[in-house]
């Protein structure tokens, strides 16, 4: 762990449960507040963290509380940078159906990845697909981006 007045760099390994990751999310969001990140940015980061943690717990670790989630977070005055890894086999994000297509609009799931892509400035996965890396910069447009629609 490295922590100075303006930088927080921290890693955690926690059990794969809603309660455990909620504590981490709270700690990261609280740090953003102390760095005076605005409410739009905190909303964006909060939503992306929730979606990424749900994906890790449900899809990656199949709701097995014996499994763990690794988180590495870097907060500087200019950006929020986090990596979240689960113990799953990973997935191919390009293979996730676009929930905005007419054929998917009434599906009850499958919107988390789109929301993360919309609200974060950089989203990438490791080659296995079980670790997401997300970055949000302080001085970016307040409105979320709209990823290109991919409907067949």
């Amino acid at each position: 762990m490295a922590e100075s007045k303006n930088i927080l760099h921290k890693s955690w390994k926690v059990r794969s449960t809603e309660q455990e990751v909620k504590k981490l999310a709270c700690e990261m969001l609280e740090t953003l507040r102390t760095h005076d990140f605005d409410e739009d940015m905190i909303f964006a980061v909060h939503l992306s963290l929730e979606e990424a943690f749900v994906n890790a717990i449900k899809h990656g670790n199949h709701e097995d509380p014996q499994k763990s989630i690794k988180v590495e977070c870097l907060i500087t005055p200019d950006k929020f940078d986090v990596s979240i890894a689960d113990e799953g086999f990973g997935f191919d994000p390009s293979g996730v159906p676009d929930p905005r297509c007419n054929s998917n609009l009434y599906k009850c799931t499958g919107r988390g990845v789109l929301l993360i892509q919309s609200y974060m400035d950089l989203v990438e996965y490791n080659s296995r697909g079980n670790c997401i890396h997300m970055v949000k910069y302080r001085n970016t447009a307040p409105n979320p981006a709209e990823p290109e629609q991919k409907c067949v």
Partner: protein
Amino acid sequence: MDNIHPNLSLEFRGQVVIATLTDEKILDEDQLQGLEGSFLPLIEQTPGIQLIINFQNVKFLTSSVLGLLIRISKKVYETEGTLRLCCIGPKILEVFRITRLDKIFDINASVDDAMIGLKK
């Protein structure tokens, strides 16, 4: 109506049911299950329900809530009812817009607007 979740407030205006979500943040599995356990029986017990879901208190939600809303809307239409949403703040409306769910839900600015055209 014995199983109404504590985080949901119901108001009956004639034949219209106004369900106000009282939580500021909806993200926990317990909250979702509680809301689903309140909404689905209510809809099943009220064929042709005219349901308005009021988001005036909601400042944060996740995609799991969107999934719940779709399940609710399917149940409402199965019973030939009507579902309208209202009082959604700008940040939450953006989530609906990004996911295009603003195209499939009847979203209104106020409860009064949502009441227009419903049988009272």
